[in-house]
């Protein structure tokens, strides 16, 4: 394969761009549509895709309907923008033209959660998963580490349903992370089951409190709708009785809500379920992704205190 000018290595979008180029090597029905984003990220895709790479301009409604038309004509279109613009600006186009018609349009949102950091509230996507979850036929993919991205892209290409891919900064976790799956057990733990979606899980490993981490059995959710609760997880919940969910997303429509429904309807019922989620902008101030996560109690000392408090309970 040619050497391509991928210049950002830490964000998932670099892996994503490489995965798209690799996918194009074996599938020529792909069309890549960007909403005028992807500077220093998509140059390699543009080069590889040629006329099948389209910058549709800052016009997300048209981009999504266009993709639906392309899918109707037998192509496999990918629509890329910032998560908030991919999901919310063209929401009715996603609902009507893509989801109702069950067309395999692949929506890609870069910067899920607070990933755009200091760019501020208009660039954050704290309700993208909830918005996509309620749409018919939609399947959501949530990679966790960089190595997940290629596998997810390949899975999405073979998935006949409309999909949404939430990208962000990849988590860097200690040890070996199992291959991407709807449910993954990341580590064993003594007394609590933690279930999270996406890179926010990294915050748990960065608390600098070994004893605290040892208490936590950690699972990662990779897809919505949630797959059936695996037997091993069900057994852990029955044994430990306490579940904590964590997500870089508002509570409404997010993982915690989905999980509570899933646990209740599958008869796996813990004594407690605590949902840690994005709080929005409680202080009215802005900062990096890390700063916002801490303000929401999703990383750093605020997360550590919250977990300790829960462990004492």
């Amino acid at each position, binding site marked *: 394969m040619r050497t391509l000018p991928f210049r950002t290595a830490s964000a998932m979008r670099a892996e994503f761009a490489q995965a798209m180029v690799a996918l194009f090597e074996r599938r020529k029905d792909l*069309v890549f549509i960007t909403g005028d984003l992807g500077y220093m990220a998509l140059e390699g895709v543009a080069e590889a895709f040629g*006329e*099948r790479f*389209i910058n*549709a*301009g800052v*016009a997300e*409604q*048209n981009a999504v*309907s*266009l*993709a*639906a*038309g*392309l*899918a*109707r*004509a*037998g*192509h496999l*279109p990918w629509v890329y923008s910032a998560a908030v613009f991919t999901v919310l600006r063209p929401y*009715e*186009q996603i609902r*009507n*033209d893509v989801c*109702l*018609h*069950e067309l395999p349009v692949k929506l890609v949102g870069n910067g899920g959660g607070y990933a755009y950091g200091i760019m501020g509230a208009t660039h954050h996507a704290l309700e993208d998963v909830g918005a996509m979850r309620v749409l018919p036929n939609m399947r959501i993919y949530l990679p966790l580490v960089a190595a997940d991205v290629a596998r997810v892209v390949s899975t999405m290409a073979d998935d006949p349903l409309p999909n949404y891919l939430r990208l962000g900064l990849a988590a860097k976790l200690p040890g070996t992370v199992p291959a991407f799956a709807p449910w993954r057990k990341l580590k064993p733990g003594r007394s609590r089951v933690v279930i999270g979606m996406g890179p926010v899980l990294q915050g748990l490993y960065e608390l600098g409190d070994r004893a605290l981490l040892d208490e936590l059995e950690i699972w990662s959710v990779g897809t919505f709708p949630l797959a059936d609760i695996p037997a091993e997880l069900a057994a852990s919940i029955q044994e430990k009785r306490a579940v904590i969910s964590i997500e870089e997303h508002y509570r409404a429509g997010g993982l915690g809500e989905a999980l509570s429904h899933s646990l209740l309807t599958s008869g796996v019922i813990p004594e407690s379920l605590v949902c840690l989620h994005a709080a929005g902008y409680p202080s009215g101030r802005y900062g990096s992704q890390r700063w916002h996560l801490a303000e929401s109690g999703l990383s750093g000392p605020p997360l550590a205190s919250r977990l300790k408090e829960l462990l004492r309970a």
Partner: protein
Amino acid sequence: MTEHAKAECVMLAERVLSVKMRFLAMYKRANAGHIGSSLSCAEILVFLKFAWMRDEDTFVLSKGHAAAALYSVLAEANLLTPCQIESYCEEATELPALPPFNVIEQIPFATGSLGHGLPVSAGMALGARFNGQDRRFFCVTSDGELDEGSVWEAALFINHHKLNQLVWIIDRNQIQAIGRTEDVLALEPLDAKLRAFGFHVITVDGHDFASLLAARDECAELWTLRAAPVVIIANTVKGNGISYMQDTVECHYLPMTHTQYEQALEELKRAHTAFSHGQRDAG
């Protein structure tokens, strides 16, 4: 006009009478509205189906509220059954008041929410280009629909990518849901706007087959030149042909009483007879 064109107009006049009689019956049976919207685009739809589109071409009715006219045209072409037509707006029908998704092969997209038809048509046209297919795409929007920003996003895209195999037809009946377009959100000068976007603009009388035929011939010439994407502004009258409906906001909504239905049928037949006599006398 050539003899062939005259014969084509006579054939189309027969077709459109049959199409209108059918959809008026559908509206009456269902006690449904949007009659004026169907009457304003009936000739356009009939013309596209019976005088312009080939088997490999695709039609999108972006103004989905005129679905009854579309269903009736498809029935006229034996692509919907009388049984399906009778079920229009009944419980458990395949034919709701606005076009359904993934049920009727000739309806590639469910429309009704305005501003979707043109961009999906652009996507299909681009897809056909990638496939190396000689297919054409015809999309009818309303004029009130032009308030939607997504229409103009698509207009930019169609011109930037020179999607010349897409023909956009605007049913310019001057009336939107609760008012006249120029009172609600003025569109004029519409032709100048569209020209500025890069379109080749053709203006026609949307109820006159001779005028539509001339537009078709102009397009054929443009396609040989690969000049520019085409938009046809079809000047029409909402509720056309029915005296009590014509050019009123009410005919966007109100179903027909029994007397109004009888009157509508009578006026359509009378106009058709006059047209036929005119053709015979001219011949």
